[in-house]
């Protein structure tokens, strides 16, 4: 074989070999790039990328006019990576005056055997800027949301609170946690293997966080403030343990105000509620804690917001305000008429118990209206006797007692109503006067609101709608309602309840220029440890609505262990103060103005006026 031929063969073999190698490389390249690229990419990024969770900004809580009751803002938290800190003493010395933390404490923190240590949570923007300017190796800022309550502790038992982790712990914050919380996202940060952020690496969001939706409440910040002020002043004046006040829109069931207060044991108020802001600058929030409240207080010293929403969570024996059930059923079943007379002795023995009227008197002839005006226990028991157990129990259930109100508020009580199975010989004496039942203040108000609403029981509402992160509001479904009393009976009841305020036990509830209908209540407090009642301990309450002949607002005020004990003396004045403000706040015309306006057609053909629906919600 000639050399030339041999050379040609070798060359061809070399070509084939190179081609095979090339094809193999291409094949490998295709395998790596096309089929295994995710695996190798993840291996590569794992070396440089650190995935951190980006918390979603929690939705805000607003009042019916869009005023902020609770809002989340992003704050900076100072953290350290002790592994990167070479000179802890110098660093602590530089950082201490900025953070306001002793240098020794900082040094101890930054010498821990850990890669991540919190130094200061949610610092102010100014402090964050100073920390950034120091440019210290191993010191970083991370974003952390903070809940802020611009109006201080106003309506706090209703709004609720959030914990250190930003989740709702109580109240509406807890009830609407899933809606408010949003959805956390993740962010990939480029870092060197020793944990130093790579220059220019701002991070890419692998999963964007979704901000939570807000909720717009039915509460009105102004009415809520006045309710808390009036109730707080009375709690102090009457040396009560606490108190509750609720204002409700008669037609819609919207809760306009819901105040829950308790007296502080020291008599000096809660520490955070001490200082009334003298200037607007003092309203600037502090920089600690999971929930930030304004320095300004809504309450006088010696009173603080109750630890829970007692209007819905706490039951009490209502006493005489419960007589509405007896009278409404008796009137509706034609057992009595308002002018029907009864012979009413001072006391009455039923079973093993003897019932008395509040004030001693001889046997009197009283009309049904007088019995209600003067809140006669004996007269009411006589009417209940004519009414009978079954119709009384049916009306209790019909008016919503012993059932959930529909608010689904966390910890809400359904009340304790003895059914037919628990009926005893003395029940026909104690139940009709509100001594054998335990109800919440909201349930009581619902029943009176039904009378104000022409016999239609409206389910109360605390939330008007949801507010998207873009600021668009979606209205909640209107409250459900059902007729529980016929209109003729409610008209009679309203007239009788007006008599309570004009000449009965509730004269202190009168409001100049408006007609008011309502009922007082003074009830003993059961002793949880013994059979019977706590000596000298009473609940004083008043519940009613105004204007009586064209009701717009209803309200209930309950004081826990006041002095004097009578609801007409302690709760009725608070009702008057709150209701007067609310009526004027919503521009409800006085009797004289309403008459003039109705005749001129300014208010409308039916003379009906309602609480304004609230302004458009501001951007969330």
């Amino acid at each position: 074989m000639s050399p030339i031929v041999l050379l040609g063969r070798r060359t061809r073999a070399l070509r084939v070999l190179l081609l095979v190698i090339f094809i193999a490389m291409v094949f490998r390249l295709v395998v790596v790039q096309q089929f295994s690229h995710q695996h190798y990419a993840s291996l590569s990024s794992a070396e440089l990328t650190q995935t951190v969770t980006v918390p979603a900004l929690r939705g805000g809580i607003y009042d019916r006019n869009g005023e902020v009751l609770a809002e989340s803002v992003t704050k900076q938290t100072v953290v350290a990576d002790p592994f990167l800190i070479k000179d802890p003493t110098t660093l602590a010395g530089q950082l201490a005056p900025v953070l306001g933390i002793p240098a020794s404490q900082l040094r101890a923190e930054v010498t821990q055997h850990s890669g991540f240590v919190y130094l200061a949570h949610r610092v102010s923007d100014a402090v964050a800027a100073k920390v950034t300017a120091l440019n210290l190796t191993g010191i970083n800022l991370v974003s952390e949301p903070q809940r802020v309550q611009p109006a201080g502790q106003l309506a706090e038992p209703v709004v609720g609170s959030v914990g250190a982790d930003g989740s709702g712990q109580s109240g509406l914050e807890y009830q609407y946690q899933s809606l408010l919380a949003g959805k956390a996202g993740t962010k990939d940060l480029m870092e060197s293997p020793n944990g130093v952020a790579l220059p220019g690496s701002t991070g890419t969001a692998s999963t964007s966080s979704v901000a939570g939706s807000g909720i717009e409440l039915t509460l009105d910040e102004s009415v809520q403030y006045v309710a808390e002020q009036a109730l707080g002043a009375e709690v102090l004046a009457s040396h009560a343990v606490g108190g509750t006040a609720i204002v409700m829109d008669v037609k819609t069931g919207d809760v306009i105000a819901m105040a829950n207060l308790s007296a502080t044991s020291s008599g000096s108020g809660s520490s955070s509620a001490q200082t009334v802001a003298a200037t607007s600058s003092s309203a600037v929030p502090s920089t600690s804690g999971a929930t930030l409240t304004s320095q300004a207080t809504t309450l006088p010293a010696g009173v603080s917001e109750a630890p829970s929403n007692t209007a819905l969570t706490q039951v009490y024996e209502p006493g005489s305000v419960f007589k509405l059930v007896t009278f409404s059923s008796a009137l509706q079943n034609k057992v009595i008429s308002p002018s029907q007379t009864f012979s009413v002795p001072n006391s009455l023995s039923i079973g093993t118990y003897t019932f008395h009227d509040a004030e001693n008197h001889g046997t009197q002839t009283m009309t049904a209206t007088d019995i209600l005006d003067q809140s006669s226990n004996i007269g009411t028991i006589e009417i209940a006797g004519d009414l009978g157990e079954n119709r009384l129990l049916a009306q209790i259930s019909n008016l919503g007692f012993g059932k959930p109100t529909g608010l689904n508020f966390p910890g809400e009580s359904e009340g304790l109503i003895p059914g037919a199975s628990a009926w005893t010989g003395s029940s026909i004496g104690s139940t009709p006067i509100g001594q054998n039942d335990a109800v919440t203040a909201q349930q009581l108000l619902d029943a009176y609101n039904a009378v104000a609403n022409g016999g239609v029981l409206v389910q109360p509402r605390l939330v008007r709608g949801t507010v998207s992160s873009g600021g668009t509001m979606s209205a909640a479904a209107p409250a459900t309602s059902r007729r529980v009393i016929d209109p003729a009976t409610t008209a009679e009841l309203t007239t009788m309840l007006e008599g309570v305020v004009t000449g009965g036990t509730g004269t202190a509830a009168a409001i100049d220029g408006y007609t008011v209908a309502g009922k007082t209540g003074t009830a003993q407090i059961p002793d949880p440890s013994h059979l019977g009642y706590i000596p000298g301990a009473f609940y004083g309450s008043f519940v009613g609505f105004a204007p009586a002949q064209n009701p717009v607002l209803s309200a209930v005020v309950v004081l826990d262990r006041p002095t004097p004990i009578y609801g007409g003396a302690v709760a009725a004045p608070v009702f008057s103060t709150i209701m007067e403000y609310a009526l004027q706040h919503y521009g409800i015309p006085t009797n004289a103005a309403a008459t003039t306006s109705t005749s001129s057609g300014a208010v409308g053909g039916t003379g009906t006026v309602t609480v304004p629906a609230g302004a458009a919600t501001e951007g969330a």
Partner: protein
Amino acid sequence: MPPPASSAARRPAVRPQPAPRRPPLRLFEPAPRSRHRSRRRPTVLVASVLIIGSLLSVVVADDLVAQGQIRLAHTQSLTAAALAQQKQLQVAVAQLAAPQIVVTEARQLGMVAPTQIVDLPSVPLNVALPVPDTGAASGTTSPTPSTP
């Protein structure tokens, strides 16, 4: 006829002819240049330009995308900062508008709650307004406003 002896002198000098070029030494005979190969040259050239151009385009596009990503990240951080600032300002406004702050400020300004609120009587809008008495001194009269 001239003598042939002098013909050599008269004949122009014969220039030395270059040696015939020897074909280059080759191990293999080059393949004959086919017409097909001649036609393929511009195609290869165009393809090369296209490939190189495409690669350059990819590089430029990648650079543009990277720049866009940087700008996007920067804008996103600015947006986030602006949103955070908006929230904080919103809260600051809410703090200043809180009832207790408003009441405190009002009291400091000497304002008091009204002791009585009077509702003005309703006035029908289809009644002509009274004529203001502004021209009595000069003897002129004002035009009567038209009734709606």
